[in-house]
């Protein structure tokens, strides 16, 4: 069992990085709990599928169109909901939930679960034997991409001027505003950046994991405990907690029952909160 736990901790942890990175970014910079985050996953899969099947486009043009559309939707949500109701958080959260619900139901109306969506983004078919555990090669690639992507994200936020301003805003938006940062614009950039990791994640895991119109909810349920453990928006915390949750999910899946994964993650989160009420990194800024 040990090799399986080790291998799947790495695989799941790396994938959870992609799942939670966007959610953590919005939590850290805007200090908003984006309950509409789940729709990015469903839209990534279904818009690509729609472009390919209904418009007869190839895979790459479909992905480009899908990304453009997702950025458009995210920007519209930012301008129309997040910015407008920034100070009315109860309206903001309810509106985000409603938008997620509208999108999921609309997708389900157009392509019901039985439609059988398949996106040909397989980079490497077959399985690979690691420590005696057979793993789909596609998942290994997805995990490696997750690691590379997170590294690039971190370097970008640590080394670039853009990252410096974003980190300053995540520490204190008011002071950043006084120092001349265009906080509203950077909030928008953070929203746009937040959709990239889940899109990459969906496209990579689409050939091996099930796709349905409500898949975003389950990804959101994974991103939430990771974000809580990682101090809600701290990228360092999110990276550590992705692997903690990956480990918890792996050990529960192999030792007990995969359906207890959510419960086990919740128990870990509550246990950590008892001793560290602000998550594992104690820092509420982006890094």
């Amino acid at each position: 069992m040990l090799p399986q736990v080790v291998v799947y901790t790495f695989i799941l942890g790396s994938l959870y990085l992609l799942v939670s990175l966007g959610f953590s970014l919005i939590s850290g910079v805007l200090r908003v709990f984006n309950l509409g985050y789940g729709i990015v996953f469903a839209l990534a899969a279904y818009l690509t599928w729609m472009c390919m099947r209904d418009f007869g486009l190839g895979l790459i043009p479909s992905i480009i169109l899908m990304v453009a559309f997702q950025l458009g939707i995210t920007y519209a949500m930012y301008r129309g909901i997040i910015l407008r109701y920034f100070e009315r958080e109860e309206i903001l959260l309810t509106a985000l939930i409603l938008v997620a619900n509208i999108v999921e139901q609309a997708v389900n109306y157009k392509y019901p679960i039985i439609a059988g969506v398949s996106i040909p983004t397989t980079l490497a078919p077959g399985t690979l034997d690691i420590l005696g555990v057979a793993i789909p090669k596609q998942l290994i690639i997805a995990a490696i991409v997750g690691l590379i992507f997170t590294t690039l994200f971190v370097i970008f936020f640590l080394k670039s001027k853009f990252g410096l301003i974003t980190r300053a805003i995540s520490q204190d938006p008011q002071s950043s505003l006084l120092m001349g940062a265009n906080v509203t614009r950077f909030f928008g950039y953070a929203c746009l950046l937040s959709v990239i990791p889940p899109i990459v994640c969906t496209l990579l895991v689409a050939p091996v994991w099930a796709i349905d119109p409500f898949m975003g909810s389950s990804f959101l349920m994974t991103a939430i405990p990771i974000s809580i453990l990682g101090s809600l928006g701290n990228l360092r915390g999110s990276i550590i907690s992705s692997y903690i949750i990956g480990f918890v999910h792996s050990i529960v899946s192999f030792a007990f029952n995969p359906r207890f994964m959510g419960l086990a993650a919740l128990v870990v989160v509550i246990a950590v909160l008892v001793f560290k009420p602000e998550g594992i990194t104690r820092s509420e800024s982006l890094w």
Partner: protein
Amino acid sequence: MVRIEHKRARIIIRFKNSKYEWTIEPRYWRNPLIAVVALVLAPLLIRDYPNLLTLLTTAYIYMLICIPQSWQTVGTGRLNFGPQFFVGLGGYTAGLLSIHYGFGPLQTLPVVILISLAFAALFSPLTIIAGGLYFSLITLLLPLVFLEFTYVYSGIFRGETGISGIAPLINLGTIRLNYVVLCYISLFMTLVYMLLIDKILRSRWGVLYGAINDNENAANMMGVNINKLKVTCYIASSVLVGIAGWFIAHYFGTFAGVTYLPFTMLIKVLLISMLGGRAQIYGVAAGAFFVVFLEDALRSLGAIHYWIFPIILLVFLFALPEGLWGIYRKHKYREYYPTMRVRKR
């Protein structure tokens, strides 16, 4: 001895150390009285339309969940995203006891209260250790984990089909009479919830809850035992939601977690609170009627109503920033208006 006094447009009844007041001026009690009379007459007027009676009862069921939820929002200064956890707890407890041990509704009720009490006490420290978003996020996960649990132990909880054959709340011989009486029972429970919570929120405790809602650190510095108040508020309101689950189980005779535990139920509960009037207990009534009747009216559109319904609600959410209760409140302004805080501070 009982002493009755007339002072400042109030009748004051004193008995030993207790004091009861009744405001004589009609503007304080006229409108609530009209509303209660209308609600009491409604089931009689629509008794020949079982569909409308069911809708009315469904609206009351939502109120039974949302009224304690509103109290909890005020009293703990936190927004619970998983009130349906206790609906599931109450429903499954009542259902399992009924089908396995043959318990009737009156026998399952005390057990439901005890179980809800135990779980609420278990989770109540969350109101102390988790603030703002942390609390909302953790409570959001609770019902979803419970739902997973019902799938894992489908032998007990019967998975997606749920438990059926639960003892009915009443059986008066005719279906129509059952519908009317059940509607009255749900109305009675709703009114009890409303009056109880209204009384609490107008009492000294209500002032303390208001202080916690505004700024719990300031309240703490002023000597308010905020932990005790938050924990008791969380436990009491959760038990009331658990009783709503008990009612659902015995009213429908079936109970399935897949109906009450998922995210969609949270959306409805949140919307009723929000469209009604942002954690206003009377606003919840307006919100519940609006959401339930609107959803039913849109059903005739077919499958498309699943996404037309949230679109309409979204429009109302934007158009009425203080909810339906806000329209009434403009004329009957109250100074205190609780805040719904979620964001990390």
